[in-house]
């Protein structure tokens, strides 16, 4: 039966015909009659007091309909930028943030004025005519110096630069673990600050209809319901008065989760100007203002026995919060909770320090906290192996949590639901041809060539998440997921999800699940998302590899409710008892009489008629919310082989193997695509990407795609991709997440390979990005 084969099959994506022909609908493709265009004036300084703003020339410029500064918004926007407590509930200092600066600017790019004009070009021209006088203040850029007593402050009204300083309560045996250690290795590990750079920058089109007091916002968002919640609150509107539509979105990677200043300012400008207002971010604005990821360093110590048994870890995370607390910025300390990786430890102690600086805020970026944890533990384990002259494979195997140990409660009380780490490692070693690679390495070393093999036996927690864990982390709203399934009288099925697809292919994969469960043709099922006016009361958006493991399960449960009602009605139609009715292959029949059946479509039609069982209402639709009992735990092994040019320091990835386990797979083509993209994003971090600010002035030095290097097709190796399948016991679909896996896994594999390659020179650790320049200098120093 074809219908039983949809889940697990490569189905061509439904999204694609419009996208490959140029008929997608991204934010800049929308406009409204009478639209005015907004341009923002942004601070050129990282930290300064605003002395005066002169708008005289700009106001007189051609096409300008209004120039606005902070005072114009004061009476129309309430509150401060939302900051979810996330994994650090106790904050020392969270600076107030109004969407437009009035007295003090705290990062380069902060908005100080807005212009509205008839055309984009006129708005941009006029923005250049606004004269702002500043008193420059010292910029806080270095995390360690920022924590010193006499450091300048990133906000003049703050007590110091500490946003949070929090020690996690782990088992009290870490110190004991260090006492019984034969070796202790220490390292400081940097996490370079990254710009998410979705190919489509952000944008907002807002139309406030004053007489109806209705606001419609079209924007490029991963998270339309949260935006409605925040913006309606700030503007003094009811959620029901605001509709947020997030159409085709050209990538997010975490940078389109949280609300931004423009998300409040553009709708308020529409209210002020009494006409629709549109703003589309330029790339420079994007790199300067969209939240950054990572931007951390870790001081870590690991205690181990001579035989390679890992005992204890002490870790301190220093995190560059930026100038303001990102809405979900305090999620990133999850890195501390995940620092133990795939291994058993006697104890881990962890502390996170969030430091306020004069850079743009950090917030989740693909993987958020979990790439950092993987990079940390995989680097540290390699350093222990190097110290003990052990093979990196052996030390991993020796310490893996074993299949019999699941569910496994790790150091901070998180329960790892399932895993089989050796299995993925075995498969990856086979693909890589490990023994041969080591032989080849020995030969190349004799020739003075630097080739290394790097491992990342990664694990991940994702699928946010259980209400008990997530409601306190967001400050109230649990990250569960909702779904609505509506069956029309003629049997077509409309499915509404609260997740948002911006490349993940939900329009394809979610109907695969529904069509299988209902036994109806795939073509009769359609997925809708991204519009708060449609579907359930609240949707929770897409991030943290949650869409399938939470949203997909909610859909499956709503389908279950539809089937339950259909079954009652089918029993009535078949004049049989409900318990005698069987639902198979899209039809209901009485047990033992498969020839006498009612197809699902017939039952759907009947549900809108008059012959219903007593007490049954017309119609066939259901809403379900899924509150998962646990997070889900993907894992895998990545192996990178890297050769470094002895003369120039240029690293070249010559082989890349990824064996990943995301549980049951709905569409293997889409899963592989997610892995490819994730790996390349991590290769970007490992080898090329870094947001650089001038240490003294706080000027952004990588504000364009010329200076901020994304990998192109020419930098990327071919990859060997394979899977193991360990279904998650946490949900009935047996699924986990795969959206972030590649990014979580790959940086450690690449850097471990580079360190392995350079180990003959006595180089133990290399920070990211491992550019030719950095490697050449390290090699030169090591040779001296």
């Amino acid at each position: 039966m074809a219908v039983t084969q949809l889940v697990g099959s490569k189905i061509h994506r439904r999204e694609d015909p419009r996208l490959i022909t140029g008929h997608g609908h991204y934010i800049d493709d929308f406009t409204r009659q009478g639209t005015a265009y907004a341009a923002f004036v942004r601070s050129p300084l990282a930290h300064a007091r605003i002395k005066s703003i002169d708008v005289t020339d700009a106001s007189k410029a051609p096409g300008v309909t209004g120039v606005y500064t902070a005072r114009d918004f004061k009476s129309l926007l309430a509150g401060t930028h939302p900051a979810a407590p996330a994994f650090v509930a106790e904050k020392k200092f969270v600076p107030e943030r109004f969407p437009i600066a009035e007295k003090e600017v705290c990062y380069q790019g902060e908005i100080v004025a807005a212009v509205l004009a008839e055309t984009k070009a006129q708005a941009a021209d006029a923005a250049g005519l606004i004269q702002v006088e500043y008193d420059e203040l010292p910029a806080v850029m270095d995390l360690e110096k920022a924590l010193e007593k006499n450091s300048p402050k990133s906000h003049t009204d703050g007590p110091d630069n500490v946003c949070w300083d929090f020690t996690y309560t782990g088992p009290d045996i870490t110190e004991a673990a260090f006492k019984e250690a034969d070796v202790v290795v220490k390292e400081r590990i940097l996490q370079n600050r990254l710009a998410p750079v979705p190919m489509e920058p952000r944008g907002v089109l807002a139309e406030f209809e004053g007489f109806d007091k209705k606001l419609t916002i079209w924007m490029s968002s991963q998270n339309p319901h949260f935006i409605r919640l925040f913006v309606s609150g700030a503007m003094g509107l009811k959620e029901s008065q605001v509709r947020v539509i997030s159409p085709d979105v050209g990538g997010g990677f975490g940078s389109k989760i949280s609300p931004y200043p423009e998300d409040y300012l553009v709708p308020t400008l529409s209210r002020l100007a009494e006409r629709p207002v549109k703003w589309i971010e330029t790339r420079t604005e994007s790199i300067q203002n969209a939240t950054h990821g990572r931007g951390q360093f870790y001081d870590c110590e690991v205690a181990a026995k001579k035989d390679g048994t890992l005992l204890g870890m002490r870790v301190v995370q220093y995190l560059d919060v930026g100038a303001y607390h990102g809405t979900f910025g305090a999620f990133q300390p999850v890195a501390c909770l995940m620092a133990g990786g795939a291994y058993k430890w006697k104890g881990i102690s962890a502390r996170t320090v969030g430091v306020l600086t004069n850079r743009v805020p950090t917030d989740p970026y693909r993987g958020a906290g979990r790439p950092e944890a993987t990079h940390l533990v995989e680097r540290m384990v390699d350093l222990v192996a190097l110290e003990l002259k052990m093979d990196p494979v052996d030390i991993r195997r020796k310490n893996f949590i074993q299949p019999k140990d699941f569910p496994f409660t790790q150091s901070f009380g998180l329960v790892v639901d399932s895993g089989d780490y050796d299995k993925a490692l075995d498969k990856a070693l086979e693909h890589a041809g490990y023994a041969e690679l080591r032989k080849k390495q020995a030969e190349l070393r004799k020739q003075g060539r630097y080739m290394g093999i790097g491992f990342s036996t990664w694990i991940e927690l994702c699928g946010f998440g259980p209400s008990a864990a997530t409601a306190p982390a967001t400050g109230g709203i649990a990250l569960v997921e909702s779904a609505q399934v509506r069956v029309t009288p003629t049997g077509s099925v409309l499915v509404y999800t609260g997740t948002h697809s911006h490349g993940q292919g939900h329009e394809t994969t979610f109907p695969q699940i529904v069509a299988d469960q209902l036994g109806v043709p795939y073509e009769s099922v359609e997925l809708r998302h991204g519009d708060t006016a449609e579907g359930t009361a609240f949707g929770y958006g897409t991030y943290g590899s949650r869409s399938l493991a939470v949203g997909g399960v909610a859909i499956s449960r709503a389908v279950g409710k539809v089937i339950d009602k259909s079954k009652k009605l089918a029993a009535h139609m078949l004049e049989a008892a409900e318990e005698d009715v069987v639902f198979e292959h899209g039809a209901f029949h009485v047990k033992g009489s498969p020839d006498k059946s009612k197809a699902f479509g017939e039952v759907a039609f009947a549900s809108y008629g008059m012959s219903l069982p007593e007490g049954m209402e017309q119609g066939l639709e259901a809403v379900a919310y899924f509150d998962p009992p646990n997070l889900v735990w993907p894992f895998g092994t990545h192996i990178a082989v890297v050769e470094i040019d002895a003369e120039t320091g240029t690293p070249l990835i010559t082989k890349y193997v990824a064996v990943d386990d995301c549980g049951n797979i709905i569409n293997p083509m889409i899963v592989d695509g997610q892995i490819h993209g994730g790996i390349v994003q991590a290769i970007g971090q490992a080898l090329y990407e870094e947001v650089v600010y001038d240490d003294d002035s706080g000027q952004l030095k990588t504000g364009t795609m010329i200076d901020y290097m994304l990998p192109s097709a020419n930098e990327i190796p071919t990859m060997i991709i394979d899977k193991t399948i360990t279904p998650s016991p946490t949900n009935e679909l047996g699924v986990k997440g795969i959206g972030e896996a590649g990014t979580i896994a790959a940086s450690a594999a690449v850097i471990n390979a580079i360190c392995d390659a350079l180990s003959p020179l006595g180089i133990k650790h290399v920070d990211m990005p491992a550019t030719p320049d950095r490697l050449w200098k390290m090699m030169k120093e090591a040779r001296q």
Partner: protein
Amino acid sequence: MKHKVTTTVNGRQHEREVEPRLLLVHYLRDELGLTGTHIGCDTSQCGACTILVDGKAVKSCTMFAVQAEGRSLTTIEGMAKDGELHPIQQAFWDEHGLQCGYCTPGFIMAAAYLLDQNPNPTEDEIRKGLEGNLCRCTGYVNIVKAVQSAAKTMSTSPAKKATVTAGGN
């Protein structure tokens, strides 16, 4: 002061009065309503706005609209003919060569020119040939596969090849 510009886009002639500073990509999107050509940067790095100008791949943010006077342009909207996808479009669909889809029109146009110049490229030649276009979702793996697959289809079907070399029309 506005200038009159006459162009042929996807086989249709257009006449507009435009500002001399108007970029070709803005002309296509805002004047002609052809929004399939995207803007992903402001420094001509990303390639999302790639189109064909007289059959040659050009980043349409690097030209002023007035420079396109008398030229024949092909945008992504002109690639499918009579309801049939161009083999490169079909290959991107078949090989999952796109995720969010934002960079895709630029990649398809760049690939069209690449295959026009080199109908049987090696993997290395494809990767080098596409290095002017950036994608953040796919890791390029399936984009490369899509171009390989399109090359194969187009080399076995001369009629399909012709739709590409026709370039501007």
